[in-house]
Each structure stands twice: as C-alpha cells, then as structure tokens.
C-alpha cells in the first residue's frame, strides 16, 4: 500500500477536565476515501478540527506525507492542501454565496477582484452539486435553507484543487438527489488522487463510498478496517461499544 498522506499517532485533546481524544491513531491515503464513524460525542469533529488547525491537539504526532508537521492554525492546514467542510459550516452570514466560496482565495486581476470570474466558477461548482432552488449566487448566505448552506460549504471545499478533503457530516442536511451528487463528487475526488476523509452517521452511504472505515468510541480509535472486509453489523457493534475489534489495520 501507498505511503499514507496523513498519519496521526497518539493524538490527545482535552477541554478542561474532559479528555476528548485519548491517544488516537489515524491514517488516510491519497486517492482513497476513509470514513470516520462513531457515536455522537465520540470525538470525530474534535479529531478533524485538530487536523484542520482549528483546535490544535494537546499532544501526539501528525505526519503529512511521512513528514512531521505542526498544525496550529487553519492557515497551516491550508498550506498543506487540506480543505475542510465543518459540521457547523462556518460561513459569513453577511457575505453572499460567491464571497463565501472564495473567502481567503479570491481571484484577482490587476490587484482587484475579478468578480465575473468568481461568479462563473461558483455557479458552475454549485450546478454540479445539483442545486436547483438557489435563485442567485449573489444571495446572502443568511437567506439560504439548511441544505443550501451545506451545499455552499461543500462547493467551497472543492473549488480549489486540494490534496486532502475532509467532510464532517456533509450530507446531514441534504436531500436525496443532492446526497447522491455529493457521494459521486467524493468518488470523483478520490479518482483524481485526492485523499478524502468523510464523517457520517449514515452507514449505507459509508459502505457505498468508503475504502476504509475508522471507528471512534469515547475518544479512542477502536477499529480501522477495510470496507470490503467488514459488515454493517460489525461497524455498528464497534460504534456502540458492543463489539471489540481484534485485527490490525493493514
């Protein structure tokens, strides 16, 4: 197997008295889709916020392409080519869709914004995700429905070519058609060699797209398996703590 693009070794994180991550190992490979599953409050979002530099880990090692890196700000993650869709979406309500999608990565020409270019790219990306009900890409995101906001956040993360795309429950608010599009998009990204990490509670979706499944239980990584080598029941067992995994990740 390839060299993992991301490798976490024994990362820990606590908030005051609460130990949320208790020495977690995790790997993600280029061109592969890794699903991160676990119960509510297991620590999934905390794990990926560490990777995104939003809430740095308290300890442990992060290897990127085999090199130890320090991820202390979102900019660090950005420079490594890590794009993240957060569970709480993190959009600026006072900006419009285009402005949000290009925030921090605006297209310039002659030192000022090339609004036309950005508008076109934004519209194209959104269209791919089969958004039909958004009237105008110049709407403020505050006026969007829950699913529309989520779509904007996802579109944002695939606008620029990234090495790693992390999606925290990307389809939670999406309709049937949109969910299908996002899953298709995820597969397309992997085909292009991007490493995708996807968090989801929907095991059907997970089994449909993921190459690997990693299961967090109360802040510990209790299982890391190939999707082809496990079953729905097993994974539910790991998630609820009813079952323990005996193998080792390849």
């Amino acid at each position, binding site marked *: 197997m390839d060299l993992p693009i991301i490798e976490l070794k024994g990362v820990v994180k606590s908030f005051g008295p609460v130990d949320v991550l208790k020495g977690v190992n995790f790997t993600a490979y280029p061109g592969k889709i890794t699903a991160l599953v676990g119960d509510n409050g297991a620590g999934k979002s905390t794990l990926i916020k560490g990777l995104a530099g939003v809430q740095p880990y308290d300890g442990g090692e992060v290897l990127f392409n085999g090199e130890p890196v320090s991820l202390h700000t979102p900019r660090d993650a*950005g420079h490594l080519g890590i794009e*993240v869709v957060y569970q709480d979406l993190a959009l*600026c*309500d006072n*900006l419009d869709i285009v402005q949000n999608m290009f*925030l921090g990565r*605006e297209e310039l020409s002659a030192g000022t914004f*090339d609004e036309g270019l950005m508008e076109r790219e934004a519209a194209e990306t959104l269209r791919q995700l089969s958004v039909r009900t958004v009237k*105008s890409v110049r709407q403020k995101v505050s006026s969007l429905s829950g699913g529309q906001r989520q779509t904007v956040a996802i579109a944002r993360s695939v606008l620029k070519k990234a090495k790693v795309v992390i999606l925290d429950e990307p389809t939670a608010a999406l309709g049937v058609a949109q969910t299908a599009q996002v899953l298709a998009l995820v597969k397309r990204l992997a085909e292009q060699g991007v490493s995708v990490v996807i968090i989801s509670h929907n095991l059907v979706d997970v089994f449909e797209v993921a190459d690997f499944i990693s299961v967090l239980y109360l802040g510990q990584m209790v299982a890391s398996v190939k999707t082809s080598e496990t079953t729905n029941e097993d994974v539910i067992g790991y998630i609820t703590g009813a079952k323990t995994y005996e193998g080792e990740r390849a």
Partner: protein
Amino acid sequence: MGSGQEGGLMDQVRAYVQRVRSGEMGALPAIAGFVVLSILFTILSPYFFTERNFANLLTQAATLVMLGMALVFVLLLGEIDLSAGVTAGLTMVIFVVLIAVVNLNWILALAIAFLTGIAIGTFIGFFVAKVGIPSFVVTLGLFLGFQGLELIIIGAGGLYRVETPEILAIQNSNLPPWAGWVMLLVMLAVSASTSFLDRARRTRAGVPNRTIALVWAKLVTIAVLGGIVIAILNQNRGTGFKAIEGVPIVVPITLAILWLGTFVLDRTKFGRYIYAVGGNAEAARRSGVKVAMIRWCAFIVCSSLAVVAGLFSISKVGSVDAAAGRDIVLSGVAAAVVGGVSLFGGRGRLIHAAIGALVIAVITNGLGLLNLPAGVNYAVTGGVLILAATVDAVSRKRAGGSILRT
C-alpha cells in the same frame, strides 16, 4: 442559477424596490432624515437654504464625516475606537507644536503627525488583536492617556495658532469655479471607467451584465446632482468686499478619500476580510484569513484617517488647545450608526458614515441659526438625534417586517 444582474432596466428597478421594501435600505433613511431636517430648518430660518449656509454645512461637517469614515473601519469589525477624537487632537498638537515651537517645516511636521497616527493605530491594534483586550477598554485608556499627553506637550490650556496657509486653506479656501467643473468631470470619468472595466471583466468571464442603461442613469445622476451642487457653490456667497465662491477645498479631499476607502473595502482582499471578520470571525479564520492582522490594520487605518479629521478640524478652528478632540468621538460613532453602520460589525459602508455625519452636522448647523438658549439647544439636539434615528428604525421595520425586535 442567476446572479441578480439579468434583466432590463425595469427588472433591475423592480428588484431594487423589492430589496428596499424587504429592509435593505442602506443609507436611504438617513438621506430621508437629512431631507426632513433640511425642510424643517428652511421653514424655521430664512438663512438655512442659502448658498452660504450650504457651504458652511459642508465645511462644518467635514471633520465629523472624516472621523465617521475612520471609525467605519473598526466598527465593521464590531470594535470601537474611543480614542479616535483625541488621536486627531494629539497628532494636531504635535503638528502645531513642531511648527510653532520647534520651527519644523510644515510638511515634515505633517509627516510626523501621520506617523504618530500610524503608531497609535499600531499600538491599539496590537493590544486588541494580539493581546486580546476589548477595544473599548484599550481606547478608553488612550482617550484618557492622550488627554494627558496633550496637556504635557502643549501645557495646560495652552493655545497655539495654526499658521500654515496650506492647512488653513483646506477649510477656508475654495477651488476656483472652473476647477469645480473639472472635479465633476474627473468624478464622471472615474465612475464611467470603473463601470465599463467591470462590465468588460464580466463579459470576459461570460457572466451576464446589468443592463447598460443603469450605467448611463448613474452617470447622469452624478452629472446632474454634482452639477447643481457645484453651480450653487460657484455662486459668490461672500457678504463683504471679498468674493467667496467655489467648492471648498475640503470637499475634493473628502471625496477622494471616500472613493479610495470604498475602493479598498469593496475591491481588495483587505476590505473583503474586514467584512468577513466582522460577520463571523471564526469562519474567516477557518478560511485562512489572518484575523489578527486584519484587525490590526483596521485600527491603523482608523487612526490614520483620524489624523486627517484632525487636520480638517484645526483648519476650521485655526488653533489647537490641550483639549483638542475630546468631545467628538461619540458623535463620530453616532454618525456611522445613524447612517446605517452596524455596531455589531459586518454591515455598513463609508458613504453611510458620511451621510450620517451630514445629518448630525445639519442639526448643529440649523439650530445654530435659531439662536436658542444653551439648555434648549442641547435638549433639542438630543431630541432631534433620537428623531432622526427613529425615522431610520421605523422605515427599516415597516419595510422589512423585521423579526428581530419583537
């Protein structure tokens, strides 16, 4: 998926009306307030609606306009700069004392004043953005501290004359009439060229443009309104032997800064990030915006523009004392808020602060013609300010059916 730019003139107008009716009124209520107050004062005083008083109003408002615009940069972040007024005062104290006492060349002194302003902004920005003290406290500390510095430098109650003709000219001299017309032409040219440049870019990107009729409408509006203003200001408004005519020099300076600032806020990363940080700092941070740096720079811009406000003020007064700039800052914030800038960040434009400042200035201007006793004057000023804000609030509510305040 559209972009709101499609459709002909009527579609665009209809869309605009609907935006207004749904509460996105921008500076409209402030403009309405200004018009109402103007009508009121025209009825109450025969001197209000005169060329002379019109020019007065522009020069009297200039300091507040500039201070309001300075504050917009930090208000957009949800921050405040209570020291902006005394920053203006302190830098002017330094400026004048350098000239009068140290005998420095005025341009050098001006440079030092600006550097001081930048240093002050850097100081505030450091404590707010890096150390994390609420800006209210940092700038309140400086509000006190700078009053002290003014006293130390100028000596208690000391008073120095401004003797630099170039500085005095800002508020007290006028462009020759022909230059006023040139100014208008420049404005038209700039407006037209940015509009057409934008359209060219959009066309290149293959996205629809607003109907070109809008561009013409905008240019005609500027030409007509600007033409009227300049024609009025080009009248001789002197009452003595001396002819006083032309656009006060402060006007083109203010317009240039307004244009430049708006350009920065609308078309550069720095400006966009100010809005983003003001709207949702955490989202901006996660998008890779250097939030602390943006905050820091905004305070530097604010303090630098405060220096300009100080220049306008001393040009008007002709002297500097140790209390310079102490009382104006709350009015500056009020100007921005009355004009439609949100104190919670993320919403507002420079022009809003400018219009808000005009509203506040017209109160003082109009009441100044009525010769009211001091107490009544204060009371009426306060009352009218609340009234102006009520016009604003009610019109927004009526229109938007706002859900926020019920």
